[in-house]
């Protein structure tokens, strides 16, 4: 999968692109871990996972988010999910992950 990362106002914005499924879950997990580490060093101590480029995420990806959040909590990093598309909104609701994570419509709202 494609992955890009930027810093905005002291926060790390991580932007995966494509699908997170069995084939890409491992790479997704590794990128998330790196992003959390980066965010721990950033002034804002915040990681925003930009879902704007994500088509879909299976339970492997959702659980990888939980693992990343544990790492983030231990490092004092706040984690937010931003810009889910309609499919991802439904998946977050059905899985009740919208109760575990802060979800925003825009990156600005997450910052």
């Amino acid at each position, binding site marked *: 999968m494609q992955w890009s990362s930027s810093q905005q106002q002291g926060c790390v914005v991580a932007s995966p692109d494509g699908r997170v499924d069995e084939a890409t879950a491992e790479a997704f997990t590794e990128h998330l871990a790196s992003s959390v580490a980066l965010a721990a060093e950033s002034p804002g101590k915040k990681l925003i996972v930009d879902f704007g480029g994500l088509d*879909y995420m299976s339970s*492997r990806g959702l*659980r990888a988010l*939980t*693992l990343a959040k544990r790492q983030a909590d231990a490092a004092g990093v706040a984690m937010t999910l931003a810009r889910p598309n309609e*499919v991802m909104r*439904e998946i977050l609701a*059905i*899985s009740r992950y919208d109760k575990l994570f802060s979800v925003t419509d825009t990156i600005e709202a997450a910052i």
Partner: protein
Amino acid sequence: MLVRFWGTRGSLPVAATAAIVQEKVAAALLAASGRSFADIDEARSFARAELDFATSGTFGGATTCVEIEAGDPANGDPYIICDMGSGLRGFGLDAMRRCGQGHARVYHFFMSHLHWDHIMGFPFFVPAFDPNAHIIIHAGHADAEEALRRQQEEISFPVKFEWLRAKIEFRTLKAGETYQIGAVQVELMEQHHSHSSFGYRFTDAEGKVVVFSTDSEHKMDRMEGEADVEQFFREADLVICDTMYSLADSVSMKEDWGHSSNIVAIDLCHGGHAKRLALFHHEPVYSDADIARMHAESVRYEELTREHDPLEVLCAYDGLEVAL
């Protein structure tokens, strides 16, 4: 092959209260406003065709017990039952009726594990008092006999295990082996649960496959092991899966409680190219409306995430029969 669900709840049996039934009746009356029915059959037809299941019926409250009808009773093929939850009582009474019609009095049980909700029905299993019955209890656990005898010690139950009249045997099965038992080939797989649990894969002579996988937690730190689970579920005609909690609950508040979610079950069935999934081992605090909502959400999640052939998502209830 026919799969018949006698008990579909997890943890503890539950029963509808007067208040719950009154709510269903009120909802049904409202839905029928302005209608009149010539007789009880018309009213029944209306209830079946026009009311949602949570109003007209119930998912039930008995704990885990699933019967697999395979082979031909006329040829003497035995009963096959997964687990001995409180639903076993209903099966036992029905089995006595069928034995009266000539069914062989041979019962092969396959135990996922030995927690109370999965063994609590055995003291009420009427065929165990039949001196002509032969009961074979298969388990991946070597201590299955200890668990069953213990729950019938006098401190817990007034009828001792030793007083049961049937011929009762215990057989320990090994994961990874294939066994021919009755009219099915049986394989088992160890699962993650307190004191371990086992899933079973049953294949009949026509190649129909049903997988019984309950009380299985799919841990976040072992996700790479799920390829083995998908292999176990491969191309099954029906997978019966523990879907007790939401994914969020299963990774937070209910982590290490030994159960799974509808989301993971669907993903595993998709990965294994299974044809049908039965949501199972329902949380006892869930109302019928809660379970129906979970079912609808599961159907939608399957639609959203489907890459190949559709996976039919059923919601198990006490009394459901699935012909494969």
